[in-house]
Each structure stands twice: as structure tokens, then as C-alpha cells.
């Protein structure tokens, strides 16, 4: 009974359901799709460019699929052929899929031209694709105010172009030209070992999540089963990173508002969490701890007890921080009704994570897809209702409390198992294979698409949630005052590392 109740409240991702969608794709799109397969808990389809538009229309309009969200569009080269990778998801039906579209052109310039030609057609079906088009509005002459990349963390990787009517914003455009630092051939034909050590830089405010995402993908490819103890330790580290990232978010909000005491207090608390992470992994920011088939080293016997002992202190401090920040009527008045977004806007922009949940959509892949062993742990998905800045701050505090609850459960009941050595990557032999993997990072759903052969990674495409948050910012900024721009963008928790590719 309890289990049914549990499943009733939080719909778990059912593989049977994915199989049904797979069969439906076979039935409805038989002649238009070259290949369809299930990669972990996602669907992956290969198709030609000529059938792309009709497939997208079918996926959007057919109630069997009900796909309303486009998450990402990437141009990449796979096996000597240029392709588009389009990420789609259906929150109502609780599944997502990637379309690999084979382009006709064999040259760099030709593929870019094809990309430019096909985007307007995609925009007619999914409006959110306009973010990936080259926009003429991103010039100084068209706009009344331009905010170049700022010094403060979180505003440092994009320029903001605003068209205003006095101090009210009419239109906003965000340009990420400064943050596109990766070369085109990056992550192509690189060794898995190199990638494992550097991948955490893609989300440097919580570096454990890219590592986890990559390892989950490779483990699925190699069919490696990881012990319960390892999985619990991974969850524990993820939740500690989530707490650290959320406290850093609070610090940024406090800095923007001018609450210096809350800023200092949050940095102090973040240090406490970072020191626990450092004690376990040896590093504060980029842990390089999660390995394929295991972890770098096991806990010392006293570590779990030490973490458990420090939890009450963190809980009290976070509660104090929340009181300090949100019991202040001046601050709450500033945050309330600023940057309001309803759930339709949030969904249309492909936003995930706390920003989506603050608008009243219950979507957390820890629960929705039974990620790792989260199903064995008791916690609530923090939910908002109004979708304003205040809600986005409150939801982070609630998530911190839930993370503390998860860590408490893990440290109380950590299975005592022998941990095998991680897999020797140099000996891996694998045919050409593709895999998708996703984790719930502090900013949203962090997804990677990987193509591998033996121990070489032919392609790694990082689909971070911050790009969707940028488009979300463009949509919610109009109607607000120019003075609130920094606050609204800070409340979306944009991580610059995810914008690099």
C-alpha cells in the first residue's frame, strides 16, 4: 500500500512506458526514421534531414508523443558526417528523446549553411529554437542598454542587450559570444582518461555531476553493476555538492541585493561544506573522485560519523541564513513579484531543475526516473507556485533541507561492502556505441551524449541546463525594471561552464 502511495505521488519512470513510445515511433514514423533505440532511460532516433520537419510535427501534434519542449540543438560531426543533435522532452508524459539528424553536406561551411536554413523551419514548430538562430538584434545600435559581461560570478559569460521604455524592459537578448571558448574538434577522439579528469569543469559550481554523468554513461555501455555502497557514496557527494552550490547561489543573491551579512555568512557556511567535500575527495571544486565502476577511494570508518555529526551544525546555520535573508521584509519585498514566470513559459523554454519547480511543475529526475538509488531514500521534491525570484530562492533553501535529510539517511545506514577497484580504462574494448546519460544537478537536468569506440571517446556533447535558463531569462526580463536585471539573472543560477560548447 505504501509503495503504491509512493508511486502515486511521484510517478516513477516506467520502462514499459518507454517501450510503448518506442513502438509508437515504429508505427507512426516507420518510413521517416532510420533507427530508433532505447539508451538507458532515453529514446534515440536517427533520421535524415529531409524528414526532420514532418517528424517534429508528428511528435508535437500526435497525443501519443505529446512533445512540447525543445531542450537543445547542437551541430556536430559523427563518423565523418555532419549531424544535428536535437533534444526533445515531454514533461506531461515524463520522457525525453534525442534526434540525430544526418545532414547532406560534407563540409564545414556547407553544414553551417544547412543548419542556418533548417532552423527557421524548426522555429515554426518549436518557438524556443529561436535562441539558436543568429540574431540581428544583438547589436548596440538596436538596443537602449547593453550590459557587458560583469565581474561577479554568474554574470561573467554573456552580454545583455536591452530595449527599454524608460526603465521598463521591452525586449532582452543574451549573447554568449564571449563564453564560446571550446574549439570545434574538442572532445573528439580523446581518451576516456583525459576526459574523466577534465569533465568537471563543465559545471564548476558542482563538479561532481559531470563526472557522475559521464561515468553512468560508460558504465551502462560496459554493463557494469556498481555496488550499493558506491552508489550511496555517490549520492552523498552529489547532495553535498548540491548544498554547496545552493549556498553559493544564496551568496550571489545576497551580494546583488546588498545584504552583506548574509553574503559573508553564506560564504562561511559554504566553506564548512567544501571542507567536508575536501576531506572525502581531496579537492574543493573539481573532485575527480567518481571513477568508472566505482570511486577513487573508500570512506575511512570514521568519515561517515564525522559527516553525520556536522549535519546538525549545517542545518542550524542554513536555517539561520534563511531567517537572516528572508525574514527581512525589505529583501522579500524586493524579491517578491520580480521576474515572474508561469509554468507554460518555463516549460516552453526547456527549463529544468529548481527554476522549473519554482513555477509549479513537479519534475525532478531523481524521483521521476529512479536515478541511482534515490528510490530507497525518503525525501520530498521541493515545489514552488508563483515562479518569482522569492520562490526561486526559497526553493533552494528547501532543497538544502532535503539534501541534508538524504545525507542523514545515508550516513546512518551506509552498507558495509567491499568496494572493487575501478575499471582499468586502458583495457576497455568496445564496439562503436552511443549512450545518453542524465543527472539532476543543482541547475537542472545535466545530460551528456557520448559516442565511444574501445577506450576512445569519439564525441562528447554536454547538454547543460544553463543554456535553457538563458533563454528563460530572455522571456521573463520584459516587463521588469532595468534595476532588477541582475537580481533576476542571479535567481536563475546560470553556470558559465555549461555555456562553453
Amino acid at each position, binding site marked *: 500500500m505504501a509503495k503504491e502511495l509512493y508511486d502515486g505521488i511521484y510517478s516513477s519512470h516506467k520502462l514499459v512506458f518507454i517501450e510503448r513510445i518506442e513502438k509508437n515511433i515504429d508505427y507512426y514514423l516507420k518510413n521517416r526514421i532510420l533507427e530508433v533505440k532505447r539508451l538507458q532511460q532515453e529514446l534515440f532516433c536517427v533520421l535524415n534531414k529531409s524528414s526532420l520537419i514532418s517528424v517534429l510535427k508528428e511528435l508535437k501534434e500526435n497525443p501519443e508523443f505529446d512533445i512540447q519542449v525543445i531542450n537543445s540543438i547542437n551541430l556536430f560531426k559523427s563518423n565523418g558526417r555532419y549531424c544535428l543533435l536535437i533534444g526533445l522532452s515531454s514533461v506531461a508524459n515524463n520522457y525525453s528523446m534525442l534526434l540525430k539528424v544526418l545532414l547532406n553536406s560534407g563540409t564545414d561551411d556547407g553544414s553551417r549553411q544547412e543548419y542556418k536554413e533548417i532552423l527557421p523551419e524548426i522555429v515554426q514548430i518549436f518557438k524556443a529554437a529561436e535562441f539558436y538562430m543568429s540574431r540581428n538584434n544583438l547589436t548596440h545600435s538596436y538596443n537602449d542598454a547593453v550590459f557587458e559581461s560583469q565581474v561577479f560570478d554568474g554574470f561573467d559569460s554573456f552580454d545583455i542587450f536591452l530595449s527599454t521604455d524608460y526603465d521598463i524592459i521591452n525586449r532582452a537578448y543574451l549573447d554568449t559570444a564571449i563564453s564560446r571558448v*571550446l574549439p570545434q574538434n*574538442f572532445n573528439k577522439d580523446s581518451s576516456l582518461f583525459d576526459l574523466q579528469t577534465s569533465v568537471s569543469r563543465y559545471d564548476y559550481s558542482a*563538479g561532481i555531476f559531470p563526472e557522475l554523468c559521464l561515468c553512468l554513461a560508460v558504465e551502462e555501455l560496459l554493463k557494469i553493476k556498481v555496488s550499493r555502497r558506491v552508489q550511496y557514496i555517490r549520492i552523498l557527494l552529489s547532495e553535498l555538492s548540491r548544498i554547496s552550490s545552493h549556498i553559493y547561489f544564496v551568496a550571489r543573491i545576497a551580494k546583488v541585493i546588498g545584504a552583506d551579512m548574509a553574503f559573508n555568512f553564506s*560564504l562561511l557556511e*559554504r566553506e564548512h561544506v567544501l571542507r567536508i567535500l575536501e576531506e572525502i575527495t581531496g579537492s574543493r571544486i573539481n573532485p575527480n573522485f567518481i571513477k568508472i565502476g566505482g570511486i577513487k577511494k573508500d570512506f575511512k570508518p570514521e568519515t561517515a560519523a564525522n559527516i553525520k555529526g556536522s549535519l546538525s551544525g549545517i542545518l542550524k546555520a542554513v536555517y539561520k541564513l534563511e531567517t537572516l535573508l528572508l525574514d527581512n521584509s525589505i529583501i522579500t519585498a524586493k524579491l517578491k513579484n520580480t521576474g515572474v514566470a508561469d509554468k507554460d513559459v518555463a516549460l516552453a523554454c526547456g527549463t529544468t531543475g529548481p527554476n522549473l519547480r519554482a513555477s509549479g511543475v513537479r519534475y525532478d529526475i531523481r524521483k521521476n526516473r529512479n536515478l541511482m538509488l534515490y528510490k530507497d531514500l525518503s525525501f520530498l521534491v521541493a515545489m514552488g507556485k508563483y515562479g518569482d525570484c522569492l520562490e526561486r530562492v526559497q526553493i533552494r533553501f528547501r532543497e538544502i533541507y532535503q539534501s541534508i535529510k538524504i545525507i542523514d539517511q545515508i550516513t546512518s545506514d551506509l552498507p558495509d561492502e567491499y568496494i572493487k577497484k575501478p575499471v582499468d580504462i586502458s583495457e576497455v574494448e568496445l564496439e562503436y556505441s552511443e549512450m545518453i546519460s542524465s543527472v539532476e544537478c543543482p541547475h537542472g537536468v545535466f545530460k551528456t551524449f557520448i559516442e565511444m569506440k574501445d577506450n576512445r571517446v569519439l564525441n562528447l556533447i554536454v547538454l547543460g541546463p544553463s543554456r535553457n535558463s538563458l533563454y528563460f531569462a530572455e522571456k521573463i526580463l520584459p516587463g521588469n525594471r532595468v534595476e532588477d536585471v541582475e537580481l533576476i539573472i542571479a535567481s536563475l543560477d546560470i553556470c558559465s561552464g555549461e555555456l562553453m560548447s
Partner: protein
Amino acid sequence: MKSLVKNNLNLFVAGFGCCKQEIFAASGPVYDISRFGINFTSIPEESDVLVIQGFYNKEGQSRLLKYYARMREPKWVIAVGKCVVDCNLLNKSFQFDDGFREIINVDFFVPGCPPRPEAFMYAILRLLESPPDY
């Protein structure tokens, strides 16, 4: 170093990357870099030290030059993190071009990926103790 600058050193942190978190962590109460009279500023004209860190492309490099030109003398430069000290971890082919190196003379290098806040503070204190000629 003029005593006015020595007792009130303003830092301008350019670029984006993981090092920035550790640099700003130094302003927190645990490290409290402001007890040495060191502050972070967001206006190049007000700053004495340009801190270069993180990932750059050509656009980022040209902005860095603009910031440096806007700073008033005396001015110093500190390079923080492997991406600037050695080569960019995620883009090994990118190098600051020769024109950039001719204009900007880095006074202190802080290695690490990312360096700890203590390492960054050590470089700042070395700068206060014995500032290189500008």
C-alpha cells in the same frame, strides 16, 4: 608602492572559470582578504591589480586588453590558474597572441587548477611586500 595604494589595493577579476569561485572565497569571513586593505571592484578605472583567470577566446582577449588600457597606473597583473599560466585545459590550441603578451606583463603567476584561496592570498601579499616595477 605608494602607501595609499598599499593600504587600499583594488582587484579587478576578469574572465570566467572555476578559479573565480576560489578568488571570491578569499573575500569571505574564513580568509577575510579585506583585513589587508584588499577589495574587489568591478570598474577597471578604480582598480590597481588585474587578475586574469579562466577561459578566453579572441573576444575575451580583446576585452581583457580594453580593461587593462582603462586601468590607471600604477597597475599590476596576476595570472591565476592553469588555464592562464600554462595552457587552457579545455582548449589547448588557444594561446594569448604575441601582441597581448607585449602589452600585458604578468607580475605574479598562481598555479593550480584551481588554486586554493590561500595561494591567491599569498600572491597578493607578496605583491604588497615587494611590488615589481611597473
